[in-house]
């Protein structure tokens, strides 16, 4: 810390880049967002006065597959980051694309699930299960969507040759966000589907 750069803005007290501290702080805030949603979901569990009820509709084998897809997208994400850090352009293009595609498959699964529910008579305003379920999983889906757009933007930068080891930090930050969204799903999978 003895030498001082002209622009102190890029030098940090802790040695950790600003953006990384920012994303972790933001993730802390997101814990409370999903925490409040989960609290609401659990408070209303079993209180719907009309059907369909969760046990009538939830399709465990189907959601297990999409859960697996999202888990694997996290693997693709760390491999993408590792490729960017090592300056392996081909690897980073492949893995960034793979992460985004796996994310899109997950979203497609959510679309199929939602339309199936609506088809079975569980519209958003049907009962308390529908309201809390769609709000909770919908908020998660919105986060996945933002993540996919973010990843595709990074992929675009890499394709134009604007992403290299020097910019690995922004990939790392996107990755932290992506993994957090994955971690939230790990909780939701258990809370909503397995502990039905």
């Amino acid at each position, binding site marked *: 810390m003895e030498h001082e750069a002209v622009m102190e803005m890029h030098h940090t*007290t802790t040695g950790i880049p600003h953006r990384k501290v920012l994303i972790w*702080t933001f993730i802390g805030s997101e814990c409370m967002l999903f925490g409040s949603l989960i*609290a609401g979901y659990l408070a209303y569990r079993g209180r719907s006065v009309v059907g369909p009820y969760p046990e009538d509709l939830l399709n465990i084998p189907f959601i297990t597959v999409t859960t697996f897809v999202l888990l694997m997208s996290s693997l693709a994400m760390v491999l993408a980051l590792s490729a960017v850090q090592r300056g392996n352009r081909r690897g980073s293009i492949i893995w960034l694309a793979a992460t985004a595609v796996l994310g899109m498959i997950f979203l497609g699964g959510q679309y199929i699930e939602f339309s199936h529910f609506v088809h079975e008579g569980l519209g958003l305003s049907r009962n308390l299960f529908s309201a809390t379920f769609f709000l909770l999983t919908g908020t998660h889906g919105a986060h996945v969507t933002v993540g996919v757009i973010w990843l595709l933007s990074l992929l675009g930068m890499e394709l134009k040759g604007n992403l290299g080891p020097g910019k690995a930090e922004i990939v790392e930050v996107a990755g932290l966000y992506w993994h957090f969204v994955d971690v939230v799903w790990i909780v939701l999978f258990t809370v909503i589907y397995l502990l039905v």
Partner: protein
Amino acid sequence: MSHDTYGGGVRSWMTTVDHKRIGIMYFVSAIVFFFVGGLEALLIRLQLGSPENTLISADLYNQLFTMHGTTMVFLAVMPLSSAFFNFLIPLQIGARDVAFPRLNAFSFWIFLFGGLFLNSSFLFGGAPDAGWFGYANLTSTQYSPGIRVDYWVLGLQLLGISSIASALNFIVTIINLRAPGMRFMRMPPFTWMTLLTSFLLILAFPAITVGLVMLMFDRTFGTNFFNPAAGGDVLLWQHLFWIFGHPEVYILILPAFGVISEVIPTFSRKTLFGYPFIIYSGVLIAFLGFGVWAHHMFAVGLGPIANSVFSAGTMLIAIPTGVKIFNWIATMWGGRLRMDTPLYFAIGFIAMFIIGGLSGIMHASPPTDLQQTDTYFIVAHFHYVLFGGTVFALFAGMYYWIPKVTGRLLHEGLGKLHFWLMFVSFNLTFFPMHFLGMNGMPRRTFTYLPGLGFDLMNLVSTAGSLLLGASMLVFVWNLVRSFRRGSPAGRNPWNAATLEWSLPSPPPHYNFRTIPEVGGRDPLWRPGGAEVDPEDPTAPEPVMPSPSGWPMLLALGPVIAATGALLSSLLVVFVGVAVVVVSVYGWAFQPLER
């Protein structure tokens, strides 16, 4: 001098990313909203001045008390604290700006637009009228048709974005931009309280965000979150609101604690007594603040176990709060007191806050609370902590730091006149409310019958409130006078100890030409501390971030989208989203320095 390198004109303010200019904009906006909220309060008091008064209708009364609360909390006191955070934090930690200067500008603009959005409701069919707490199912489409409550829901969401963005920024700034040697336990207490407030903000706001989304779904898409007929529970709203709302109380008071912890040592010529205790009490208050929300709900019947747990938690908070008060008094004890205006307000703060704190402990006990809830006793209590506490402290901070902002001192005589007027009229306004509450006068009711024993106290309170309004004019006059012909402040008019006082007043746009090394707490009071000289002319002038229009444009997007939601126009919502997308990319690919 290098002070004026911003360029001038409105455009330079609209595109500024400088934390000091953003702080000034927060200050001006907050003061304007403070006067709007104050005017609403005066109308309320005029209506209540005599029994069966017909000055304003019940409908307007509901709008006024809703907007008074909402404005004072979200548009006056929080942004006023934000003004202090913005102006002071980089200066206090020895940094040239915040960690994300453009995000900082964004936070300000979306706050301003959100505040204007909320207040524009007065022009279009009436302001929100369901209370600042918006209890379900008063807010349902059945009991609140029309768009008033929608204004409130959307306005609060916009302000939430502002608060979270700003809090994230200050957490990163304080963690990551401290000058060499400034360890956490060497940070000025105001910086510490800012850090804690920021954590409260990022953790408390998500709860109300979720509650507001549920409410919006109920109103727009016909869901039944808060509809008991379909199994919904109106108390879920109260839980979510107060999981946010109680930490929010500490969001309002912790910055005040920070200000007091700076003012009292400076004007006692003594280092802060028990610094670690002050800091750790703050941490404890912030942490316990998340475990006491249901004390706002004792009257709803949660049952004896829940009530006891939340009551015990609430009483526990009195301990760290008491620790702080004893530390402030011990700091003054044996100090060489310099009786300038900031210290007047600081001492006023301690006295008023103790009164408010004591009545708070009273209704921490559920049986007592059941007698007091929804009466004027509660109104008296929270005005003693929020006005007698926070607002007194913020005025102490203004008298203390405005010379740093403008380079000119405020007038001491006018300052003391302001203090005494405010102190007397504040007590005249709010102390009688204790009695009114004890006698059973309910809150949120636009009038009362004669002969219930409420008449005299209400008249006294109304007279006090008019005087309170007048005391604010003294402050404004002092401010204007100081701009025109205040005496120059110099670098350190109070001989204070923290880094901001080592800089010229006002500080140059890059703050520190060379970043100082910090050897301990109270750097300017340490041996050789006065030699901290950031204006070393041999050092190169630092390159600062360039102005940017993207933050303001990005802030416009959500406001357009909210307007679209209000008008039920999907097209306008999409325009708002498009503005967001374009600005995000424009921002992301615009380099910070050009």
